[in-house]
């Protein structure tokens, strides 16, 4: 599904319903202004669900779904939404998509739904979704808004996957439940699965992002 969307986007970048901005939007959301590492949005769930890679990926998928869906509908309705009630309209749209995903998880992946607990519902208050609806979808046509939602969702999911990978690997020596680091020479560090490990990992990931982006952007970041 991701691939076909990306293909559709590169197609529209040349043909032009997105005004040729599709690829730039995609790159912006997924890397240049990565919602997680650069803008510091949606940290709550990033820390809470990443103790295992699997739950990180599910959370990432949830966010992509909600972000794309809500951006599409906020954008479709942008000309009919009175300015004063736009916030509550956005929240209602976002909550609808979160409920859809939550019901889907409960119906088909009960274990995962139990494991994620309240954090699926908390996507509603995840600042990324709201932020994109407010900052992007209100001003842009539906297709481009969907691309933006996808890009930000992907950027966020990527960040989650990295953190989840590090924490599961160092915390249990496993990936997806398969032993990778042998116990003879690596003692799993329980701390990485617990709360402090989450903070440390995210701190280091952000620092690495900063270092990779180079010093020129640091001024605006402050």
């Amino acid at each position, binding site marked *: 599904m991701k691939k076909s969307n990306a293909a559709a986007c590169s197609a529209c970048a040349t043909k032009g319903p997105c005004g040729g901005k599709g690829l730039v939007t995609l790159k912006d959301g997924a890397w240049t202004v990565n919602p997680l590492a650069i803008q*510091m*949005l*949606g*940290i*709550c*769930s990033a*820390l*809470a669900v990443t103790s295992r890679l699997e739950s990180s990926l599910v959370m990432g998928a949830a966010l992509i779904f909600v972000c794309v869906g809500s951006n599409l509908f906020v954008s479709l309705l942008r000309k009919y939404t009175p300015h004063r009630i736009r916030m*509550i309209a956005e*929240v*209602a749209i976002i*909550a*609808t998509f*979160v*409920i859809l995903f*939550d*019901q889907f998880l409960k119906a088909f992946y009960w274990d995962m739904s139990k494991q994620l*607990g*309240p954090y699926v*519902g*908390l996507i*509603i*208050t*995840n*600042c990324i979704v*709201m932020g994109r609806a407010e900052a992007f979808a209100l001003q842009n046509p539906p297709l481009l808004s969907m691309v933006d939602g996808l890009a930000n969702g992907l950027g966020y999911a990527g960040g989650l996957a990295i953190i989840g990978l590090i924490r599961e690997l160092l915390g249990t020596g496993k990936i997806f439940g398969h032993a990778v680091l042998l116990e003879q020479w690596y003692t799993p560090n329980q*701390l990485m699965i*617990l*709360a*402090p*490990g*989450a*903070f*440390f990992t*995210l*701190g*280091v990931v*952000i*620092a*690495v992002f*900063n*270092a990779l982006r180079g*010093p020129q952007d*640091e001024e605006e*970041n*402050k």
Partner: protein
Amino acid sequence: MNGNSALVILIAAIFTNNILLTNFLGMCSFIACSGQIGTSLGLGTAVTFVMTMTTMINFVIYHHVLVPLGLEHLTFIVFIAVIAAFVQFVEMFVERFSLKLYFALGIFLPLITVNCAILGASLFMVIREYTFTQTVGFGFGAGVGWAVAIVLMAGLRQKMRYSNVPKPFEGVAVAMIITGVLAMAFMGFAGMVSIQ
């Protein structure tokens, strides 16, 4: 489901199961508003008040309206609507009756609607199947715990200004590491009381 008294839950919500340091809720405003002790104290007070009240209101709505009508799938949207409406109401009320309090708390109130700790507390209340008194204890304790964490953090960050931090770690990255150390300190409380 669990027979803990409200007092035990209150203590646990402040220390062993701190909503910020073990459940990671309310991180956004935690990072954004922990620059100064005064600011974070104001925000912490506002969060405590709103959290206590909204968990109580949501408890009543969930158990006396949503469950009897079989509308549990609307939980999220109802909770968020209640929180938004309550915050709006408090803002109007405070503005009308105490301008001084309005200027102290006012600017934080809109921020609170999107604070995930508030919604999270209501969702935990449902998942852990608290009774009403337990809910009151939990809502208040979680709010106080959040306030304690953000005030501690603000104190630490005020000192951080004089420290020499490696370039890539400046700003949020080092704040995360400090929070990690803070979370480790709070882990020392584990085993004192426990709720789940």
